[in-house]
């Protein structure tokens, strides 16, 4: 699914989501070279650095919540998950957005965990 794609992961992203990315053919890269920027916490210093970067200001860097990857992992058709639903806006904007729109998609669903079939 992610063959040839480079991903950057904020320190807030759990190991199993990174492993899934790599297992699906993605590689890990630094934020400047990455095709995808993943984070689980908009106020983590790693992610804050992205929000303050020129790339971000110039609309060249959208941060996505890494739960996109678990949604992909759990979807029956892997490329049917809309990446656009997983935009992670800066923490200072989230309150206002939540007031207008309700909870974010990654807050609505508690099932964003990669199922481990070998564990019972």
């Amino acid at each position, binding site marked *: 699914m992610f063959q040839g794609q480079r991903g950057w992961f904020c320190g807030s992203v759990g190991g199993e989501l990174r492993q899934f990315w790599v297992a699906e053919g993605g590689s890990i890269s630094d934020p400047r070279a990455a*095709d*995808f920027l993943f984070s689980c916490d908009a106020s983590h210093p790693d992610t804050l650095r992205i929000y303050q970067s020129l790339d971000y200001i110039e609309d060249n860097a959208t941060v996505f919540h890494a739960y996109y990857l678990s949604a992909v992992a759990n979807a029956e058709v892997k490329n049917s998950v809309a990446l656009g639903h997983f935009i992670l806006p800066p923490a200072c904007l989230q309150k206002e957005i939540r007031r207008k729109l309700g909870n974010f998609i990654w807050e609505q669903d508690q099932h964003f965990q990669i199922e481990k079939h070998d564990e019972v």
Partner: protein
Amino acid sequence: ATDSHSKMLKYRCSGCIAVGKSLNSRNFSKLLHSCPYQCDRHKVIVEAEDRYKSELRKSLICNKKILLTPRRRRQLSSES
């Protein structure tokens, strides 16, 4: 009438219908900005992020001015 209209628009939002490999962190924002049929959700997020970005841009310009002044002064004094 407006209800079915907004429903139709909702399903044409590029941010919502676009799936697959072509999208990533580099082109997503531009795709949304160029979409004339943004859904409510994406419209609110884009507006909030745009406001944040323009404030950041302003503060960057201010910082640059502050940072440049003493350095220039030092350069001038070392030249003389």
